[in-house]
């Protein structure tokens, strides 16, 4: 992002404040349609949401101002506590898998092997498939009695697992489907990053007698660290907002084991019509994301290549 911004700065200082008004007006006109939409449907709502979070709005009656009550309530709500815990566990399980597995595959694909388009297509199919359809397919695969996975397990003499019915396993199942669905996307980003790593660096490392594992950890990882950084942040943001799979596969159950924040916000706001409480939860999510992003950026210098 910052790189893109700086690209423009020199031009600005070269011909400073020398605007031709006729051209400037066209600039405003061209931006207007998109900007108005962004203003009305993103910028104003962000502020409006904060206002809503300080009311008890139920849509059925006029809202009254309740101050920070909704925020206090989050910390007294035992279900919110479970939800936040689940969301953190979900994030801690899914984000590392969504980094390590795609990276492994991208490294394998980067070995000048045959069949790259074939593999890329296979791994990319889940990415373009709608989340609802993916949910249906996995509801069927993970079905306790007739699902493909348990039928396999039985063949090997193992006990069937209640993938979506056992409270100890259901969240893991949602993690696995999430990873399955996002694998190809991250893989393509890693592959693009790997293809940008200059070959001669590896040649130099070969001369120094570095083995494959040393090269991977001391050369490859640092050189693609911007991509890793980006995918960790977007991975966290995604998992904080997870909705589609939970809604279509488990509805937060069994025994609240798959209640995730994204789903809980929707349920409070649109199932129970507690707009105020829903907005407060959404703001909590917003702050959590902001905090994590800022934290990440501040430690970024220490491990992301090109930032030192």
């Amino acid at each position, binding site marked *: 992002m910052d790189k893109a*911004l700086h690209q423009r700065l020199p031009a600005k200082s070269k011909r400073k404040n020398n605007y031709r008004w006729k051209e400037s007006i066209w600039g405003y006109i061209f931006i207007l349609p*998109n900007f108005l939409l962004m203003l009305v*449907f993103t910028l104003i709502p962000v502020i409006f949401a904060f206002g809503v979070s300080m009311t008890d709005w139920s849509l059925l009656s006029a809202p009254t101002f309740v101050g920070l009550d909704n925020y206090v309530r989050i910390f007294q709500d035992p279900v919110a506590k479970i939800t936040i815990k689940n969301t953190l566990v979900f994030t801690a399980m899914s984000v590392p898998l969504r980094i390590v597995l795609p990276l492994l595959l991208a490294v394998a694909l980067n070995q000048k092997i045959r*069949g790259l388009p074939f*593999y890329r297509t296979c791994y*990319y199919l889940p990415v*373009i498939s709608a989340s609802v359809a993916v949910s249906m397919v996995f509801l069927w695969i993970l079905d306790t009695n*007739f699902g493909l996975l348990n039928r396999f397990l039985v063949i090997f003499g193992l006990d069937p697992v209640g993938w979506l019915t056992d409270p100890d396993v259901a969240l893991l199942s949602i993690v696995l489907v999430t990873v399955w669905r996002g694998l190809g996307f991250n893989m393509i980003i890693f592959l693009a990053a790997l293809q940008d790593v200059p070959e001669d660096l590896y040649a130099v490392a070969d001369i120094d007698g570095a083995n494959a594992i040393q090269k991977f950890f001391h050369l490859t990882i640092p050189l693609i660290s911007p991509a890793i950084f980006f*995918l960790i942040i977007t991975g966290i943001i995604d998992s904080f907002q997870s909705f589609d799979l939970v809604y279509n596969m488990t509805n937060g159950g069994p025994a609240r084991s798959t209640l995730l924040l994204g789903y809980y*916000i929707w349920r409070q706001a649109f199932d129970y019509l507690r707009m105020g409480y829903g907005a407060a939860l959404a703001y909590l999510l917003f702050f959590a994301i902001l905090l994590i992003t800022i934290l990440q950026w501040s430690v970024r210098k220490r491990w992301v290549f090109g930032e030192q």
Partner: protein
Amino acid sequence: MKRKKIFRKILIHLLLLTGAMIMIVPFVWSLLTSFKPAGEVFTRSPFWIPWPPDFSSYERILEKLSFIKYAGNTLKISALVTLGQLATCSLAGYAFAKIRFPGREKLFLAYIATLMIPGSVVMIPNFIVMRNLGWVDTHRALIIPAIGSAYGTFMMRQFFLSFPDELEDAAKLDGCSPPKFYWHILLPNAQPILATLGVMAFQGTWNDFQWPLIILNSESKRTLQIGLSFLTSEFHTDWTILMAGSILTILPIIVLFFLAQKYFVQSVKLTGLKG
């Protein structure tokens, strides 16, 4: 040395093939299920291949469930959002990249900042706005907010920045105004980036679920994703129907993917550059 290399290649292919299997098997499995006669998915071994395929679940879904209607709705919404994004983002991207006006850098920074705002935060206020506008249960509510896109604008700007300034200066000398330049020179040369953004917008809208779920109530206005989601309440564990429905909603995007694979891959790579 050579044998070691071949051995390594085989190992890599084994890894990649295993992964590819895991990616593909769910699709194959749902396709097979959709061609089985209802009921037989529970009684017979799961591994038999239905031959000749039984199309009755597709017939049922197309006749009874107004899937065609849902597909039409989804196509209309996705196409309009795509066109809207292409038009407004290319205009704004051009202005941010090439036209100089006071406040441009600040405005652009505001755009970048909106990329940080999670969808869950604006969902509730936007619903309230839609309610006050009387747009609940309309397709407008799905189309118009989706047209404004900070990301699309950012993408367009990055592309137009790489456009040679000389071309613009020459055009200006010939008395070419910004709208003419945009229409006659910029757009015809922006085909790859337009296709990339178009594919992204279309796929995203086609697959969108949460916002349509919030906005739509009437059966006749449903999109494919909403229709498919409601199938579970009607057909519970009738897996042949559910799988046929899933295949039908995925199929158009897969076809689009094979037609425009290059642009799909490009759109992912550009997303990665954002960081």
